[in-house]
């Protein structure tokens, strides 16, 4: 509730910021862009904390055929342990004998623990102005429990190592109508698309830690909280590929590759950005 009051009282600020962005091109570019980024990066004005609140309620909500909550779900640190769990994902899970990211793992827990039909949940995987997303809300809540902590991706399981190798290859895989790969935009230092600064995600360092440490995020341009699954889906849209399958092994492979580049970096989530 405190989140809610805070958010609504500052909604006007956000509106002003968005209008401010429209006037950006007239200003002197880099400094102005940086100033805009700092202005919107205010956790006290971040509507994604509404998602955090809703996610907490969903985590504790009994549902599914078994009418139980997700509170016994093991996200890698033991049943029900949320603190620091997101900072170590994706990771290998022995019970499913696979590497999973948070969203895959949540679907797994819904199916195995709650006996919940996830079809309708997946249909709402990305929120719209009229529909909330249980997945986005749960991710906001759980990721927030790792905020301030550092990424720890040791890759000490052979399946994690394999996923990393696949993720790296996928990162460089060019295809479709414009020959794009992830590397097209994310392998140069200090490059921009239009006025958007592009992180170099091919190596460990500041770009990778700041990028991976700021997802999930509230996207001002979309007026929604978004997860890494959504970000990769949007990248493939721009790469002129078909929509990738939500929670697929390939997306998780890309995520473990990216998370490894951010190893040791601090999480500050949910963040807020353009």
């Amino acid at each position, binding site marked *: 509730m405190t989140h809610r009051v805070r958010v609504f009282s500052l909604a006007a600020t956000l509106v002003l910021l968005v209008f401010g962005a429209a006037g950006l*091109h007239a200003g002197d570019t880099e400094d102005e862009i940086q100033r805009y980024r700092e202005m919107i990066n205010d956790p006290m004005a971040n509507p994604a904390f509404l998602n955090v609140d809703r996610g907490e309620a969903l985590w504790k909500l009994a549902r599914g055929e078994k009418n139980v909550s997700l509170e016994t779900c093991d996200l890698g640190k033991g049943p029900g342990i949320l603190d620091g769990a997101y900072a170590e994902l994706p990771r290998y899970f022995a019970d499913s004998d696979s590497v999973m990211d948070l969203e895959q793992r949540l679907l797994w827990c819904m199916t195995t623990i709650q006996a*919940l*039909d996830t079809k309708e949940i997946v249909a709402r995987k990305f929120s719209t102005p009229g529909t909330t997303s249980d997945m986005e809300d749960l991710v906001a809540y759980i990721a927030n429990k790792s905020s301030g902590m550092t990424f720890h991706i040791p890759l000490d399981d052979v399946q994690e190592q394999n996923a990393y*190798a696949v993720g790296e290859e996928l990162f460089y895989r060019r295809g479709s109508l414009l*020959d794009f790969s992830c590397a097209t935009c994310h392998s140069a230092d200090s490059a921009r698309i239009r006025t958007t600064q592009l992180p170099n995600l091919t190596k460990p360092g500041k770009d990778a830690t700041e990028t991976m440490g700021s997802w999930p995020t509230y996207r001002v341009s979309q007026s929604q909280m978004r997860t890494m699954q959504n970000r990769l889906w949007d990248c493939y849209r721009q790469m002129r590929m078909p929509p990738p399958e939500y929670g697929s*092994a390939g997306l998780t492979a890309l995520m473990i590759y990216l998370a490894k580049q951010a190893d040791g970096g601090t999480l500050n989530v949910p963040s807020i950005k353009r």
Partner: protein
Amino acid sequence: MSPQSSANRGSPMRTLTLCAALFIAGAMNAVAHDTGEHHDEGAQRSGAGDPSITEPYVQEMWRNAEATWKVRLKQDETQASCSRFRNAPPDDVAEKILAREASTVVLPKDGQVLGKWQDGEKVAQSGRGGQFSDNADTVNGGNCYACHQMAKSELSFGTLGPSLSEYGKLRNFSAEAARDTFAKIYNPQATVACSNMPRFGAHAFLTEQQIKDVVAYLFDPDSPVNK
């Protein structure tokens, strides 16, 4: 829509979905284990990756894509080579790419490569087309400004590619340079193997007329690019 509205739907479907998920996960793991060795050998042999390990994952990532979209999953030879060598192909591979891509370039029959710069500006500004969020009747854009500086009056430009400011002026508005530029936009990999720039003409992403208009945007003395 209540979060519980679907709680009592049939469990056979759910079990089936779960089994399918497990099967796919298992198959993926098996493939990854199998090809892991190949990956190492490939890396030792050539200093490059082994893109073949991605293909089962690509199939799985887009298993529900519509048939008309699935054709985009298949790489052509140049895409596969550039992926494998991470855009830094060894000389022999680069030569093959250059030869193959040069053979795709089709210059306008009448030799006229200059269209209308005002239309070229629209192509340079538009980043639309070919995305699953676009309508079927969306006119494709070249999105030149995403990566290049062009007219100095446009401050929203990217830096992945070189600045094209005063492009024609710096080349004395030469007819030969304009023809080379048409070919370059048609297929940049005919001159630079594994260039990051899309093969706009070879993929038929832009029409011949659109490419001519962009060439005019770069070469017309009245174009803002040359101001």
